[in-house]
């Protein structure tokens, strides 16, 4: 519980987020730890405004995929992003972030979402789908036309720098 509090505390203490949702924080943290920060608040943070993955991250780490995050969700996020977290865990969460439709596979549609977000919609639909095909093609180990977690891990392990830098220092 203490950890959760500090998690929320971090969220609310730092700089601009101070008054993100003060009204949401109950006076007694321990009795109702299920306070959720609605996605609308997270997504409207000025720093996140331009980040293409803000919604996806919130969704992945939230309990029910709606983007509303509890304290525990925040803590989960931190632990995944910490240096201690095993690579597989990191890979798993990275995979989940890509997996927009939550079907445990990264399919062409998922990739198109990613590419579109990354390129801020500057590529035409045709270009996006071509890029996605190539991406899929590169990493698709079992040739089923979509990336399983295993494919994803294989592909990511081939460039070992990826995951080793996939953490933040808090």
């Amino acid at each position, binding site marked *: 519980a203490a950890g959760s509090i500090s998690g929320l505390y971090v969220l609310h203490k730092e700089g601009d987020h101070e008054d993100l949702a003060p009204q949401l924080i109950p006076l007694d943290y321990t009795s109702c730890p299920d306070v959720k920060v609605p996605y609308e608040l997270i997504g409207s943070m000025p720093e996140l405004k331009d980040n293409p993955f803000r919604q996806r991250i919130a969704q992945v780490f939230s309990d029910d995929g709606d983007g509303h995050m509890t304290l525990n969700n925040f803590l989960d996020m931190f632990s995944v992003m910490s240096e201690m977290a095993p690579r597989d865990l990191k890979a798993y969460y990275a995979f989940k972030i890509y997996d927009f439709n939550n079907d445990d596979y990264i399919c062409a549609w998922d990739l198109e979402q990613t590419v579109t977000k990354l390129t801020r919609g500057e590529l035409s639909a045709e270009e996006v789908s071509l890029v996605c095909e190539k991406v899929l093609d590169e990493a698709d*180990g079992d040739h089923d036309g979509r990336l399983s977690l295993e494919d994803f891990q294989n592909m990511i392990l081939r460039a070992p720098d990826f995951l080793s830098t996939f953490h933040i220092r808090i």
Partner: protein
Amino acid sequence: MMRAVLPLFLLHLAGATEEPPQKPGLPGEPSPGLALFRWQWHEVEAPYLVALWILVASLAKIVFHLSRKVTSLVPESCLLILLGLVLGGIVLAVAKKAEYQLEPGTFFLFLLPPIVLDSGYFMPSRLFFDNLGAILTYAVVGTLWNAFTTGAALWGLQQAGLVAPRVQAGFLDFLLFGSLISAVDPVAVLAVFEEVHVNETLFIIVFGESLLNDAVTVVLYKVCNSFVEMGSANVQATDYLKGVASLFVVSLGGAAVGLVFAFLLALTTRFTKRVRIIEPLLVFLLAYAAYLTAEMASLSAILAVTMCGLGCKKYVEANISHKSRTAVKYTMKTLASCAETVIFMLLGISAVDSSKWAWDSGLVLGTLVFILFFRALGVVLQTWVLNQFRLVPLDKIDQVVMSYGGLRGAVAFALVILLDRTKVPAKDYFVATTIVVVFFTVIVQGLTIKPLVKWLKVKRSEHHKPTLNQELHEHTFDHILAAVEDVVGHHGYHYWRDRWEQFDKKYLSQLLMRRSAYRIRDQIWDVYYRLNIRDAISFVDQGGHVLSSAGLTLPSMPSRNSVAETSVTNLLRESGSGACLDLQVIDTVRSGRDREDAAMHHLLCGGLYKPRRRYKASCSRHFISEDAQERQDKEIFQQNMKRRLESFKSTKHNICFTKSKLRPRKSGRRKEGVANAEAPNGKPPRDLGFQDTAAVILTVESDDDEESDSSETEKEDDEGIIFVARATSEVLQEGKVSGSLEVCPSPRIIPPSPTCAEKELPWKSGHGDLAVYVSSETTKIVPVDMQTGWNQSISSLESLASPPCTQAQTLTCLPRNPLDAEEPQAPLHLPSDPRPSFAFPPSLAKAGRSHSESSADIPQQQELQPLMGHKDRTHLSPGTANSHWCIQFNRGSRL
């Protein structure tokens, strides 16, 4: 052999350089009238000598590289220094006085800028900024530490009486010496590390340090120098403060000058649309202007040029035309390499001049020991601190290489030469010591660092191009991390990068890039684009016969296990006939899945060269012909593809036909079978094939070739093939590695060039398990209108692996010229026939593909894996942009 040749060669060259100065005596007499012949040496002397020196250096480089063994062991910088020593000795012996030395003025104004610009411009900026903290620490703290400790220790050494008393130097003198000897030299580091290939992080840290420590060196040197000149008694406390302040002024000022010029440069190139031709010139001019401006303001010039190159690259690359980019790249590399060569050579020459230096063993040995020791100590201490903050800590081995890689070079030498003898009485001793230190670090450490790196098993850099996945994930991860940092409210590295990128996107890019360039600036698309271009080029490089071969081998894969597959390829390759072209292609070319890529990017081709793309951007009135040519080339390319597709079709049918006919026959009559098979088809496929190859190669090779040339080339190609076919065994023995594109059509030459394919798509080779999947994929890209032929060929090919090997050979012989069909036949069989009926020697196959044919003895097991990785990577004939191909990426259906 080298040893014998070199002195002679040098002697000759030295003679050449020496002779001219003697001549000018001739025209001294009053001329009686109109001179028929006048010798005007003095008027051309200076530029002539410069040109000669560069020529000497270049020729020396060529000589060095004649022997691969020498250059693989000895870094070029060592050889050049030694050459310089020899040349210097000759000059000294001939002219009786030392000439042509490394003048500090020349060095700083002309020789150093190209090297620094080159390194700054091509610096991997991402890597650089990722490690900026470490680089800055080593550059600033490390250099200061080295300077002070070395200086102090030397002073201590003197106090202890280990330095001869004739070395008249006080504490400040030693500090001055320490400051100039402590800086790691960018030229030396670059020269040595370039050949060592340590991993990128390590390289960028050492090299970045050597670039950025310039500011510190300059400041320290100047401060100490002025202190020495003032005399230690007169130095006030404020002077120390000024010294510290000047560190910031010099470094930040230098960086600022560089960035200002980078901005100007980017802005200028935005408007060069109609005068493409001066684009490369602008890059050099403004960068040089940055250097000179910083030098003029006595700021850190190296820093200025580095920042200029680093800052402008993104925008300049986007703005200038494709050709200008190539021009910039090559000119920069040429200049830098030239300057580097001259520097090392002159360094060697300068060392010969004994009038300049005075020897003191205590000082020399002490300096050597101290710089090594304190460098190591400093690195360890700093790394310990840095590792507390680094995401990826530097391990012990890294530290060893970093300590050992602290090479000193020409900068130190130039600085020590600049000392004023009246103010620094011990100058001569310092010069001698500097020379020894430079020689020791460049030669001894340069020689040993490679074995050391090997011995320590330092992670080498893997040269691989970014895959699309990497690019994609890198971006995504950046965004994710930035987002997480934002959510956390922690302003870390990613936060700043994210901010910067947004700023760049919103303002800088808008301001500095053309609209058209900005549009396609998107990196992912960029990478995709590049990958495709490269694929296309490599595909064409592999020769035009991919089609048939792809048809031949690939279908067999599903049914066979891996060994059988390899052997099929081997077998086919073994037969070295004209059609063999394809077979080599098979293994050099990447995965079967790449056929999808191929097909896809040919699909794309149509789109790529149309409006909105870079080619559109580079289209201007002045150069319309050029661009038209380019586009024409593309069209030719596409047309070739189309034509080839047709020929493919016909070949396909022929093959099947042949197959069925051939089955019952003996190997001796196979030729006829082929001939028969061809007959039904109106056009002999072989001719078509050649034509296509020729034309395709043409287009890619040189943009300027006309279509009309194709016929000539065609003939040549034919000859080439004949020749090679006969000489198969010969070539085999030679084991020559030549990946030259020009000779592409010759079957034997292609296989050594797998480097091409391997380089192109190295990530592909990562799949060990690839072959398993190919089967499912193989059948997917089949031209719709060729389905029947395809299926037939599949069935025929499945039987192909089992019949005697010669069978396959016939198939491959298809595209040969009827004339040669008889003659070359005999030699052709040589490699394959002697083998037991169905040997499929995998070792040989491997030999063909791996660079040395001689390595055939290596256990096949090792080689099999890579083979598998490659073998199926044939491009199916990339269909043209049109709908000939039905590409089913089956993911859709399976999902």
